[in-house]
């Protein structure tokens, strides 16, 4: 085996790329869960975003219009979840699982005509001088715009939750919806907005996979990243900072196992491929003892007359 074949700069750069869909989907789900809603449909919204973004990009020739379409597609699917859980008062776990299954099937249907096509590519940031710096140039200044958008969104979410009144109200709704209602806050409206935001973020994350990371369309190509994003929110204890850390950790694992395979390390491929999922399970077991960090009303159905 030859570990020198692994270039540190490329490794870190591709780690950031691998982490981005995870980060986008998870930051959306974090906001949803802080509002007290558990949407297990992240995987379904991601794959819907992936095909919407891919199809519209191919048809219009613009990756940016594709990204907007992906966000709209994810949000549209999450609206279905919002109607089910906020108006029909359906069980959130069952509705979320249904959303995932529906999204996987629906995207496969739409995607039939797009297999084997290549989407228009998105330019990379290029700042003369900076982008040419050794190592840092490639790692910090040589990415596509969506990656920077993901980082900015994470920072913005942190500021929103921590310092703004709207963020405080959203946390209050997630913490104790009955008390928030008694104070006159619109629990259902706030939750629907949070769910739509979560859907748009998941859709964007999905499109990042089909347009940037693996620029092609394959059925079921999100391959469980939505589920890891869900676990990541718990891993991060519902805090944006922890989310960034976790996304890069999981992104790093994915990239490392690919690189180690390429370098011919004598570990069976299967172990490496399952490592992110294994770590997710271990982390969930350890974190389950820290329940008090969980938003108090998470997953509970709100009805104004109670």
């Amino acid at each position, binding site marked *: 085996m030859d570990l020198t074949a692994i270039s540190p700069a490329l490794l870190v750069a591709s780690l950031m790329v691998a982490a981005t869909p995870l980060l986008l989907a998870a930051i959306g789900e974090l906001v949803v869960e802080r509002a007290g809603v558990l949407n297990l449909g992240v995987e379904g919204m991601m794959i819907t975003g992936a095909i919407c973004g891919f199809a519209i990009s191919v048809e219009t020739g613009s990756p940016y219009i594709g990204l907007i379409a992906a966000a709209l597609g994810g949000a549209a699917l999450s609206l279905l979840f919002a109607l089910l859980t906020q108006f029909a008062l359906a069980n959130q776990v069952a509705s979320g699982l249904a959303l995932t299954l529906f999204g996987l099937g629906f995207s496969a249907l739409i995607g039939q005509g797009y297999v084997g096509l290549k989407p228009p590519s998105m330019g990379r940031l290029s700042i003369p001088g900076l982008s040419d710096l050794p190592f840092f140039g490639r790692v910090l200044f040589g990415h596509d715009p969506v990656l920077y958008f993901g980082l900015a969104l994470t920072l913005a979410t942190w500021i929103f939750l921590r310092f703004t009144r709207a963020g405080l109200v959203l946390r209050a709704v997630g913490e104790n919806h009955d*008390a928030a209602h008694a104070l006159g806050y619109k629990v259902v409206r706030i939750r629907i907005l949070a769910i739509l935001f979560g859907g748009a973020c998941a859709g964007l994350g999905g499109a990042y996979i089909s347009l940037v990371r693996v620029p092609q369309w394959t059925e079921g190509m999100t391959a469980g990243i939505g589920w890891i994003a869900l676990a990541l929110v718990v891993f991060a204890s519902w805090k944006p900072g922890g989310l960034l850390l976790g996304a890069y950790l999981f992104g790093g694992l994915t990239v490392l196992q690919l690189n180690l395979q390429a370098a011919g390390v004598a570990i069976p491929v299967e172990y490496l491929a399952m490592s992110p999922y294994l770590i997710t399970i271990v982390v969930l077991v350890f974190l389950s003892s820290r329940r008090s960090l969980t938003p108090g009303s998470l997953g509970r159905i709100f009805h104004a007359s109670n």
Partner: protein
Amino acid sequence: MATPLIDIRGLTKAYPGVVANDDISFAIAPGEVHALLGENGAGKSTLVKMIYGLVRPDSGAMTLSGAPFAPSQPREARESGVAMVFQHFSLFDALNVAENIALGMETPPKMRDLARRIREISHEYGLPLDPDRTVGDLSAGERQRVEIVRCLLQDPKLLIMDEPTSVLTPQEVDILFQTLRQLSAEGTSILYISHKLEEIRALCDEATILRLGKVVGTCVPRDTTARDMAEMMVGTALTPPARAGQAPGDVALEVDGLSLRSPSQFGTSLKDLRFTVRQGEILGIGGVAGNGQDELLGALSGELRAARDAVRLAGAPIGHLGPEARRKRGLLTAPEERLGHAAAPDMSLMENALLTGAARKTLAPRGLINWRGARVFAEDIIARFDVRTPGPLSAARALSGGNLQKFVIGREVLQAPEVLVVNQPTWGVDAAAAAAIRQALLDLAKNGAAILCISQDLDELMEIADRFGALNEGRLSEIRPAAGLTVKEIGLMMGGAHGMEVAHAEA
């Protein structure tokens, strides 16, 4: 007479099947402390929800300082100067004091200014508060302060207090009353909702009494006896339960060095409890909610396992046994929280009777259910405890709180326990049903059972208990004979003012 602060004329609100408020009228003058008195279900909550904009009246009108007042949501009520302290605190455990207060304000100042204002106001009214503490870690009295300070920051003209003293020790009640008198002297009107008559006599200038949604009388509490007010509230003359003084028998239940970690994060661990209950005796355990009551009940029922010798039933160690084994030996329990802990809400009364009665009533011999026997048992409970229900096939959820409570207590009493442990036996039950439940407990004790009654209602414990002890932060006070205990002594046994600084000037 000057313009009243708030004038309520003919408010009516009907829900399907019940008229919650029927043509309610009264007025409150500026600076007046007005009591709203009535039993559970008399319509007090619906009335204040209309004043606070949470519920819209079907008909009737209100004026505030002479101007028409019809809030369609709490925000409008708050803007007009109406503030409310809720009975079940509307606080957010995971947020800190300042964040909780900001959520209740229309235009909160910057967090730093708000923290300073909280310190100022809370000291001015003798309710010191640290704005940076997480609300989940506060005691019940301190949590109530958060609510009150939240209201005071908005300079309310009318402050509504819904059963504010049910979670306070007598010393904490004194602090609260001083604050309320100070507010009233400054011209703030207070609408004080309670069914504790002595408190109303001590604090209020006027009282309006509700029964079944109607105003049945008004009075000046200072000049009216508690007994007269109670009779107006209930509508019939009340007979206090009869107690038979008798010498207690052998030790039935002995708890010796019971320590137990609470399984829940915000629970209270039990610390080295020691007490005995003799046959024919009722031991009352008081204390503010959340000081280990739930854990004590769990340790006695068998839901939580303790050391083998920490709990003894008639001399035999049972600390390690589960609930079913303890039931077989004659230790029965009736937990609080009727829906979910004491009864399965969606199962019928017959099934609920079977769930705890199976062993002692042999309703499931050889593992097969004897439905006929279960039905007879359930019908027996319904008949003997006057449970108002269509029949044993009704779901537990369909019963009113008082009726289900009668059923839950009756189910255990009719199994002829050696030892019965009850937690909050009359919580949320109207006065007539409460009297019936207390009488049933006294009768059971008379027939030789040992009873442990955990309750936050001190009047109830003084009425039925032979001896009294109090839980405070998981420790049990010294146990003393109930007869002759003063309110002050009881308060000190409950932990006094819980270390909360009394900032009222010593004047």
